[in-house]
């Protein structure tokens, strides 16, 4: 919301300057977004007189003008159609900066004739839209007068943010009232004295609403005004509207804008000669159409409040007037509408049709219901002042609703909620200045009645806010929080702790943590799990589906990094994934990807690409960080389709799938624009069992043998279909003397029969009670080879 300092001062008698008013506004909850000095950039511009006009020798539409300015006489080339001898305008000498464009004016040749400056249009000066011709200042101003003074420019322009609960501050008068309550001035009272009717308004208004929709329009005031001249509004009003960014149009239109901004009171003016018969209001039916003042056709839903005449819909209540009955230069007789429309319906209609008008902004936030009939007098007077004519009688349909609420208030409530203490007179003064009626009942108790413009106050807490903000939040003393426990408790639950530990464990393994959007493209989501949960109003088509897995986002991240020649990304993320929109359809997961090399190319490291086992290591590290014993996990091959079928697996714990790992299915490479294999894993955190509650944090006693261990190596030949995991498990279980089993070589090729693999396994044997003798070792070795043979058909390689 914008307004100017002189405009504010018409509502508020004050000596305060713009700066201090701005500070006070922010202080009481009307946030100052800026103060623009209007006309401050016009210092170099001044009034000049045209002392001679000649035709440009080489251009029909250009003229050569002699101008007399405070800098002396100049010749300028001018294309404005309205330039004439003796005219006074705004002159820009060379070297000044033109506000609208920010460019410095240079002496230049136009069609072969040098121009030594410029006569300016309103748009060039950044003070209006007019660019049809140059500014015509009339005869009054002296040559050399500063342009800002000659133009009657309004002073500084305030830009403030109004919170949505304060419809009453969407008018300069409401803002002035707040400032008056804050003690910076005296509020002026608008002139709402009744204007006598010169004739009987013949037209009637009917409110045709079903009982349950009576609130759509509880009150409609109509007044006819005859014999208006709808020319330009006076310069001061044009300037005032221009200053806040509105384009002056005609006296009648400017009056409606003026009323909206000045009193926060939208009104509408119909051209009476275009209205057929009486007006009536009703709810629209689905499919009805309406053409607004903006020239656009709208198709309405059922239940929108509309104003009709015998020809059909002529206005969209509280939002926009219609084209068919709009005022223009020929308008002589008008119908003035001052109405009350239901905020909720207005908001719904405006949103559905996508119309954001100044009227809607105010109606949907709630108007001053004490300023309806008085507004009719105020608006009529303004129209007569600006456009002439005479006013008919006031015709009223419906009744003024009374929105006032009585609130019993005990000032201890203020202390309870804010810690502030105010005396009774201060409480009375603040509330009365804000327009509340206050009756003191003694002992700090009051009966407070809300003003008819405050729809946001209904209970004591609301009054606490009024008192605290006007008294000043800065006067509330800060107090530190105290906690009950001497020593801090653990505040994270198991899930939160696991996520924190997994993050640090994965980062320690060389993966960088990402935070990516929870939504991806439809295809990308589908590639990772069926039909996704979708947004009804996505921002773009690549951000439409809630991701069923973190992997599509990470795959996109890999591709983006690869495209920037960052070739070895190793990324992970901990986030929620979504399989169902309804409750319980979201679970915590962590996922990671590696592409390119596992470590950078290095002189001492074998160069290789990432593979599924890198992902397996990451998955196991995440699970271990979550507190799981990897020995309890079972590994099977049924990984979902987004993985390479031959290079992926599922880790299960009991019946629950707790992780997938593997290489991404190469068929995804094209969709995601991936280069080379991508090793990926995902771990489902909510499926992990809760840790058992233990009575003690004590660890079990360490059992360490005092006797020498013995190491034996075995080289087994197995069919290539034999899983290493099965062979290792068989060996591990072969003897009680076995402490450690390590697979230290896997080989196929020369020297190994086709279809076979050689697996070399180191076994460490150790007893707790003795040094192992030859017989012990021999027996254990036999058991190892027997177990390997029985479980996997392994033969000792000779």
């Amino acid at each position: 919301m914008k307004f100017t300092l002189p405009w504010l001062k018409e509502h508020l008698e004050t000596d305060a300057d713009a700066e201090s008013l701005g500070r006070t506004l922010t202080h009481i909850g009307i946030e100052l977004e800026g103060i623009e000095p209007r006309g401050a950039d016009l210092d170099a511009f001044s009034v000049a007189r045209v002392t001679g006009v000649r035709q440009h020798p080489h251009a029909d539409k250009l003229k050569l003008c002699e101008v007399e300015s405070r800098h002396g006489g100049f010749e300028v080339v001018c294309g404005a159609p309205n330039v004439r001898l003796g005219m006074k305008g705004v002159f820009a000498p060379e070297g000044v900066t033109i506000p609208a464009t920010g460019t410095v004016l240079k002496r230049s040749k136009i069609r072969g004739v040098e121009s030594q400056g410029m006569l300016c249009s309103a748009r060039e000066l950044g003070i209006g839209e007019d660019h049809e011709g140059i500014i015509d200042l009339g005869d009054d101003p002296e040559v050399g007068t500063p342009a800002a003074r000659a133009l009657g420019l309004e002073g500084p322009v305030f830009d403030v943010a109004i919170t949505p609960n304060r419809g009453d501050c969407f008018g300069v008068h409401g803002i002035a009232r707040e400032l008056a309550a804050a003690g910076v001035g005296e509020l002026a009272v608008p002139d709402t004295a009744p204007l006598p009717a010169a004739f009987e308004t013949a037209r009637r208004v009917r409110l045709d609403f079903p009982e349950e929709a009576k609130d759509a329009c509880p009150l409609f005031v109509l007044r006819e005004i005859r014999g208006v001249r709808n020319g330009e509004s006076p310069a001061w009003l044009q300037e005032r509207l221009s200053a806040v960014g509105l384009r002056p149009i005609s006296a009648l239109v400017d009056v409606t804008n003026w009323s909206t901004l000045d009193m926060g009171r939208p009104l509408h003016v119909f051209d009476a000669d275009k209205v057929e018969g009486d007006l009536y209001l009703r709810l629209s039916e689905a499919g009805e159409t309406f053409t607004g003042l903006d020239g656009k056709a709208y198709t309405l839903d059922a239940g929108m409040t509309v104003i009709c005449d015998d020809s059909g819909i002529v206005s969209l209540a509280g939002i926009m007037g219609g084209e068919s009955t709009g005022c223009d230069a020929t308008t002589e007789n008008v119908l003035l509408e001052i109405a009350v429309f239901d905020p909720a319906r207005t908001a719904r209609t405006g949103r559905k049709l996508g119309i954001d008008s100044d009227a809607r902004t105010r109606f949907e936030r709630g108007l001053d219901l004490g300023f309806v009939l008085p507004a009719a007098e105020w608006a009529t007077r303004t129209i007569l002042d600006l456009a002439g004519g005479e006013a008919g009688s006031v015709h009223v349909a419906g009744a003024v609703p009374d929105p006032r609420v009585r609130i019993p208030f005990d000032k201890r409530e203020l202390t309870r909620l804010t810690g502030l203490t105010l005396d009774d007179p201060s409480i009375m003064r603040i509330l009365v200045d804000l327009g509340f009626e206050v009756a003191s009942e003694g002992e700090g108790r009051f009966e407070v009645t809300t003003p008819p413009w405050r729809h946001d106050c209904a209970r004591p807490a609301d009054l606490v806010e009024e008192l605290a903000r006007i008294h000043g939040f800065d006067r509330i003393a800060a107090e530190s929080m105290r906690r009950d426990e001497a020593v801090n408790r653990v505040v994270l639950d198991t899930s939160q702790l696991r996520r924190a530990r997994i993050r640090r464990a994965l980062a320690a393994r060389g993966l960088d943590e990402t935070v990516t959007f929870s939504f991806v493209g439809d295809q990308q989501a589908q590639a990772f799990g069926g039909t996704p949960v979708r947004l009804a109003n996505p921002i773009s088509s690549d951000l439409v589906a809630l991701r069923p897995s973190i992997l599509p986002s990470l795959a996109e991240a890999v591709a983006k990094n690869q495209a920037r020649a960052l070739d070895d990304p190793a990324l992970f993320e901990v986030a929620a994934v979504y399989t169902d929109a309804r409750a319980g359809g979201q679970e915590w997961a962590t996922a990671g990807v590696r592409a390119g090399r596992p470590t950078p190319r290095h002189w001492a490291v074998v160069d290789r690409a990432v593979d599924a086992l890198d992902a397996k290591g990451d998955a196991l590290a995440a699970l271990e960080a979550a507190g799981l014993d990897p020995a309890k996990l079972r590994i099977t091959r049924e990984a979902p389709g987004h993985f390479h079928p031959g290079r992926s697996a599922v880790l299960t714990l009991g019946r629950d799938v707790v992780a997938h790992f593997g290489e991404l299915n190469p068929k995804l490479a094209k969709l995601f624009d991936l280069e080379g294999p991508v090793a990926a894993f995902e771990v489902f955190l909510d499926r992990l069992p809760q840790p058992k509650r233990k009575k003690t944090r004590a660890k079990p006693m360490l059992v360490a043998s005092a006797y020498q261990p013995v190491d034996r190596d075995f080289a087994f030949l197995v069919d290539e279909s034999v899983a290493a995991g099965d062979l290792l498990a068989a060996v591990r279980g072969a003897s009680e003397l076995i402490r450690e089993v390590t697979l230290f070589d896997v080989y196929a090729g020369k020297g190994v029969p086709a279809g076979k693999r050689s697996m070399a396994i180191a076994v460490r044997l150790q007893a707790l009670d003795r040094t192992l003798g030859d017989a012990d070792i021999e027996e254990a070795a036999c058991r190892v080879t027997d177990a390997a043979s029985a479980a996997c058909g392994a033969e000792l390689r000779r």
Partner: protein
Amino acid sequence: MADRLDSLRHELLEAVDHAPDLKTLDEVRVQALGKKGRVTEVMKTLGSLPAEERKPFGQRVNAVKAAVEEAIAARREVLEAAELEAKLEAERLDVTLPPRPHPIGRLHPVTQVTEEITAIFADMGFAVAEGPDVDDDFHNFTALNFPPEHPAREMHDTFFIEGHPELVLRTHTSTVQIRTMMAGPPPYRIIAPGRTFRCDSDATHSPMFHQVEGLVIDRSTHMGHLKGCLQDFCEAFFERDDVPLRFRPSFFPFTEPSAEVDIGCRRSKDELIIGEGSDWMEILGCGMVHPAVLENVGVDPDAWQGFAFGLGIDRMAMLKYGIPDLRTFFEADLRWLKHYGFAALDFPTTFAGLAR
């Protein structure tokens, strides 16, 4: 005879001293002291001597043997040292070679800052609560006292879920206030960090961002405590003794009174310094929990009271760590992650410091 022994001794010691390496030295040892060595051979002649000569001759031969043994040991030490030196010299490594890589990843600033915030509020007795990203209209709006159709709802640019008109992506973490209060009786003292979503994307807005909600409900907490709590938090978070805060009246449907909080700062060309200068920058919204919200969750607003606040985590990260652009948070650019990320083991704590 005696001369022979002297010359043998001399000859053997000479050979020991001149042995160029351990192998030759060993050969010398065998030639001198081995089973068929020259000293051994001399010793064998002992039996052929008259009885009275045996003892003195034996003593002299033993003396020669001992001298040779001693010389060999000394020579061995010298030769071993030389050999080791030569071996070590041969093993010389180019120590300027880069070591084998052991890559280590970084944590995202959102994680680090969330943990910093958690550490501070944990010290003030707050627990950590969470709620779902997809939530219903009730938890996101209605229970929080947003009237139907009110413009305050529109300020939120809500994402809706297709096929479920009642479901939204939560526009704020305030949903967790409602979930916490409906889950059990007061008092409550929680923070709730998490993802939030608004249908808005431009230079300063991202459709996804992070908030942390705070909620305190007990018998006596008032707005002075709200100011104290946030003042204490900001001083701890920005690691400064005095951070100027400005509480500005504002409006949120779920708090009454409501305030926005600005932090004092100095903005220069490309730097922002918190706690100095004369500019103000908005950092959070807060207020006393609205009595209607308490009623909506079945808590008596005349018996219980307290405050709530909502803080942008990404924004706090930007302010504290000088990260210029919100949108870059979510782009997963490796260079950004490495540059703005945090070391894997830098756990923020209030006892050891939040940041290095």
